[in-house]
Structures are given as C-alpha cells and as structure tokens.
C-alpha cells in the first residue's frame, strides 16, 4: 500500500513536472538573427537596440503575452545564418524568426524557417527573387526591395531634368541591381558607369577620371565602410562643394558619425528618416536618443516595425500560436503603428510605401538627414507581378 502511494506520488510529481513547462509555454518566443560581429556588427547593434525599445513600448509583452527573445549572430555568412536559424527552431522552439541584414543570408535562411512552418519577418534584406518568383506566403518584409531607393533617385533626377550623370557602384550583384533600379526611371544622359572592386581602399583614381569627364551630377551606391571612404575622398578632392552627389545606402546615421562634415549636402533616397513627422516615429526617435544616446538609423526603424507586426499577429489570433493561417492573414493587414506612417502590404508581402529625397544638413553642431520632398507615393516594387501570391 505504502509502495502504491509512493508510486502515485511520483507519478503526480512527474505529471506536474511535465505540466509545468506546458503552462509556462504561454509565452511568445522570437528568434532575431542579425550580424553582431565583424564590421557589419554595427548594424546588428542598432537593430537589436530598436527591437528592445519596441518591447519596452509594448510593456515587454507581445500580443499581450510574455515574450522571450533569442538573438543570433549570422557573422554575415549564409551557412552560419542557417545554422543559427535551425538551432532557434529546434532547440529554442521559437514561434517567429525575424531580422537579417544581407540578401544572400536571407535567401538561405528564409526557406529553412518557412519550410518548418514558421513565419519569417525580414527587417532589412531586400533580395529581388524573394519579392518576385520565390515569394512565400510565410515571409514578410518590413523593409523594401533593393531596387526601390535607387528608383526613387532616378525618378527625382529625371524630373529635375538633370543630365550628364556619372554612375559609380561596387562591382557585385547589389551594385548592379542599384544601377539597374536607377536606370529604370532615369532616362537622361549617363556620362560613364564605373564599377569598382568591392572593398577597394582608394578611390582617388576614379575621382580623377570622374573630374576629367565633367559630369553635372554623380549617382553612387557605397554601403558601409566603402561609403565612409568614398565620402571622405569625394570631400577631400574638393568635389563636394562643386558637384552634387546623389546616393543610396551610403549616407546614413551610422556613416555620418564617421565622416561628419564630409556628408553635409549629400542626397540620399529612402522610405524613412528620423525627422519623419508622425507621433509613433517622434516617440521612437526621442526615446531611442534617451535610451542609447544616439540617433537611430533606418535598419532599426524597420526592426521596430517587425516586432510590432508580430505583436499584431499574436493579438489577432488571441495567443493561439498554432494558428499560422490566422497570423499570416493578420499580418497582411499591416495593422500597426508603423514608424514610416501607414502602409499596405503588396501581394508579395513587401510594403507599398512612400519614398523620400533626403539631404544631410548641419544645424549647430549636429548633422542630420532631413526630408526634402516625397518622390514616390505608395510605391510598389518592380517584381510583385512575378509573385504567385494573390
């Protein structure tokens, strides 16, 4: 009898032990993959800071439920990204995967996440195939398609009747895509197109050649460290004051800190800016500055939106995280207080949104990006028709 009682007690204890985690399962687990090491680690830091700020603003709850975050470093490598995603899905049992800066990492990770029946929320990478033929019901992007920012610059320069443009970009896929996007809307004369070696340390030879061709304006795409080098040397060559420079993904709140005055007067096209006037964005920028002591960057703004999007989906299904269909349907509504203002999702789950012309300007000792005009209203990417989703 005593033995039976003991056995029962054990069984009850065991049952309780198993029931424990099941009850505690009433929380949302989000895996956030970005680059946290190496030169790209700067961007990952800004993204993580914004995710944390979004959680602060949501009262550390997502869809009203407790939330647990898992941050993973993809080291800017597709294979490491896949490894991190698999660990999050299998070991940590995350409900959503979000983040990812680089197109090539996203191309590798997205199929792994959606293939396991989970929703992927991309908060930067804008690979064209994922907006077109390889779009996926379970994949949402809170950023943009790569081509859209250069398209906006092309449209602006076309409307201004600017001619004799000198085009420069690094010699790899994204560089070619940016130039293609620019030329989709710019139909004026192009003096020359120059593709430089990726991570080339010096641009003096290209700048001498540029000057000898006497262009009226320059279009350039130099992301990250390349942009810092390019902006400095453009300035030191005395070109900044005489030749207008229009860029995409070159002048941002990260590179401004490294080049300071060399950024002043440079144009950039984007969907978001710290000075965008809507209450959500003003609160975000103010709180970000207060919490981290620096100006946020667009990488962070779209990561913030990614968390809001997940929040809206969990709310819509009332915490029933098994209801993937319901969550996808909720996300498609884009019913969030986005930092860019209201936007809609296209059939390919990429935003239809405005694009602006920005200019780096100096007020006092601060150099900040200011919106000068709206170039596109409700702009769709060029690939959505190739996507089979309705």
């Amino acid at each position, binding site marked *: 009898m005593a033995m039976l009682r003991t056995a029962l007690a054990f069984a009850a204890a065991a049952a309780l032990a198993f029931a424990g985690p099941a009850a505690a399962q009433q929380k949302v687990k989000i895996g956030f993959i970005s680059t946290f090491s*190496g*030169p790209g*680690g*700067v961007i990952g*830091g800004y993204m993580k800071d914004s995710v944390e700020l979004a959680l602060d603003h949501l009262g550390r709850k997502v869809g009203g439920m407790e939330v647990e975050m898992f941050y993973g470093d993809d080291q800017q490598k597709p294979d490491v990204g896949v490894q991190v995603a698999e660990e999050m899905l299998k070991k940590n049992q995350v409900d959503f995967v979000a983040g990812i800066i680089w197109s090539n990492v996203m191309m590798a990770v997205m199929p792994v996440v959606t293939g396991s029946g989970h929703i992927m929320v991309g908060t930067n990478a804008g690979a064209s195939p994922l907006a077109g033929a390889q779009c996926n019901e379970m994949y949402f992007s809170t950023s943009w398609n790569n081509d859209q920012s250069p398209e906006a610059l092309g449209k602006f320069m076309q409307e201004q009747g600017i001619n004799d443009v000198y085009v420069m970009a690094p*010699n790899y896929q994204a560089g070619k895509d940016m130039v293609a996007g620019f030329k989709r809307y710019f139909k004026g004369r192009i003096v020359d*197109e*120059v*593709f*430089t*070696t990726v*991570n*080339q*340390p*010096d641009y*003096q*030879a*290209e700048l*001498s*050649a540029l*000057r*000898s061709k006497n262009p009226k304006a320059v279009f350039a795409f130099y992301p990250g*460290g*390349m942009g*810092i*080098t390019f902006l*400095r*040397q453009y300035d*030191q*060559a*005395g070109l900044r004051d005489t030749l207008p420079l229009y860029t995409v993904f070159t002048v941002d709140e*990260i*590179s401004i*800190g*490294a*080049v*300071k005055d060399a950024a002043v007067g440079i144009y950039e096209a984007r969907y978001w800016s710290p000075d965008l006037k809507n209450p959500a964005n003003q609160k975000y920028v103010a709180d970000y500055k207060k919490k981290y002591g620096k100006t946020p960057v667009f990488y962070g703004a779209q990561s913030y939106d990614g968390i809001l999007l997940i929040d809206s989906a969990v709310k819509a299904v009332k915490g029933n995280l098994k209801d993937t269909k319901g969550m996808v349907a909720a996300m498609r509504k884009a019913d969030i207080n986005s930092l860019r203002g209201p936007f809609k999702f296209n059939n390919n789950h990429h935003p239809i949104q405005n694009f602006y012309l920005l200019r780096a300007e100096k007020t006092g000792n601060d150099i900040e990006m200011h919106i000068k005009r709206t170039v596109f209203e409700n702009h769709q990417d060029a690939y959505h028709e190739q996507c089979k989703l309705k």
Partner: protein
Amino acid sequence: MTLGLVFEQLLNGLQYGVMLFLMAAGLTLVFGIMNLVNLAHGSLFMMGAYFAIAAAQWTGNYAAGVVLGLAGALVLGMLVEVTALRPLYERDHLDQVLATFGLILFFNELVAIIWGRAALYAALPSWLRGSIPLFTGSRYPYYRVVVLAVGLIVALWLWYMVTRTRLGMLVRAGASNRAMVAALGVNIRLLYTVVFGVGAALAGLAGLMAGPVFVVQPGMGELILIQVFVVIVIGGIGSVRGALVGAVIVGVIDTMGRAFLKPMLATMLSASAAEKAGPALASMLIYLLMAAVLTFRPQGLFGSRG
C-alpha cells in the same frame, strides 16, 4: 585620355604606392631579417590609426596625436614581439601564420571592445585640408601630397639606416647569419625586438596617415594587407629597396588599370564587353603581375634569397 589626366593618374599611383610602401617596408624587414611571417601586420596598422585618434582627442592636438600614435605602435610592437612572437622563431611558417592570425582576431575584438564597432571619425587639422592646383588645370588634395612626401622621407631614412649605420649593418648581418652574429657577442634578441618595433611603428605610421582618408574600423588593416603581400613578393622578400620599387609598381599599375583599362578595351571590343571585362581585369592586374614575377624571377625583383 589627355596627357594631363595621365599625369594626374601617375601621381595618384605614386601616392598610393608610397602608402603601400610604408606598410610593406615594416613587413619585409620582419620577414626578411627575422624570417617571421607576420599576418598581424595589418593589426599594427589599425592600432596606429586608433592610437593616433585617441591621443589627438585626449590632447586636442593633431601633431601630438601623430607622435603618440607612432610611439604607441612602437611600444605595442615590441610588447607583441617579446610576449607572443619569441617562441615562434624556431617554428615553421605555418605555426607563425596560425599564431599571428590569432593576433588579428585578438586585436580586432580588442578594438571593438574599447572603441566600438562603428567606424571612427579621424579629423584633419585645417592646415592639412584643402587642395592645390595642378598644372593640368585639375586640383589635388593637399593631404595626399603630404603623405607622398612623408613616404619618400621615410624611404630615404630607411635606406640610410640600413646601409650606412652600425644598427643597419647588424640587421643585415643578422639576416644573413643569425648564429654567427650572436657568436660575435651581439644581443640578437634585443636586435629582433628593435627591428620588430620599427616595423610596427612603420605600420602604425601608415595607419595613422590612412585614418583620415580610408575607414577607421576593426579589421581595417586586412583590407590593405593582401596588396602589401603582393608588393613584397614582387619587390623581393627582405629588401627595403624592393619594397619601395614593388610598392610604386603595384600602386601605378593598379591605378592605371582602374583608370584606363576600360576606355582602352572599348577601342578594341564592343562597349558592353569592355564594361564587363574592364573592372574585372583591372582588379586582377597586380595579381597577374605577381604571377609573372614569380614565374620569371621567383626571388622577386630585388630579392637575394632563392
């Protein structure tokens, strides 16, 4: 393609070559004299840039930043030699590569911890800004002229040190026969520490001068290190003269390729073919040159070893 532009691009090539020389001189000294493959040379380049920026911020004076940056790189180099590299002299090159690769990771993370991963702003004082007119009608950044001058002065100084002083004689003797020099009562250990320190200071000098032009961030040295290895292979390992000639050749060929290859190809091929082949070929030129040198003169242009 006017004569003026060709001259300007030659000047660009020369200036870039001199920048490479400052890196290559230190690397070739260490490699040739101490028989040590130092992959972490790029880290010393990076540390020079960071030390100079930190010191300039601390003192509020650019010149003080330069002096302290140089001193910092020198001391750091000696420290690294004494603590990390001494056990490696008797090992083969693969062990040295592995250990100094570890140093790269160490320094990159150290910089990220102390200064953060974001690129730093490297200020130039007003007396180094601006540009000077060229006779071609174009303008040239004043700072680059200064870099060119400093590089040539360092080359002259190194030549004097190695060929005309007692220290240089010991260094050359140590390179040819280490055991014999030690047997003659020369403190070869100290000599190695000094040589490595000077090499580190040269890398630091290149780094602190590159700071305002290039990008100051963790890993900045590795971007330029590959071209520096090309320079010393072409010039001949261990030869300072070879490093200078190799650096100028690499600088000029790389620059001329980037500037004129595409227009030249366009006169022979179709415009779109030149568009594709030009940039690809331009980025390969210096490696093709290196392959040619290795085939016809494996010891390099000025190398003494086979």
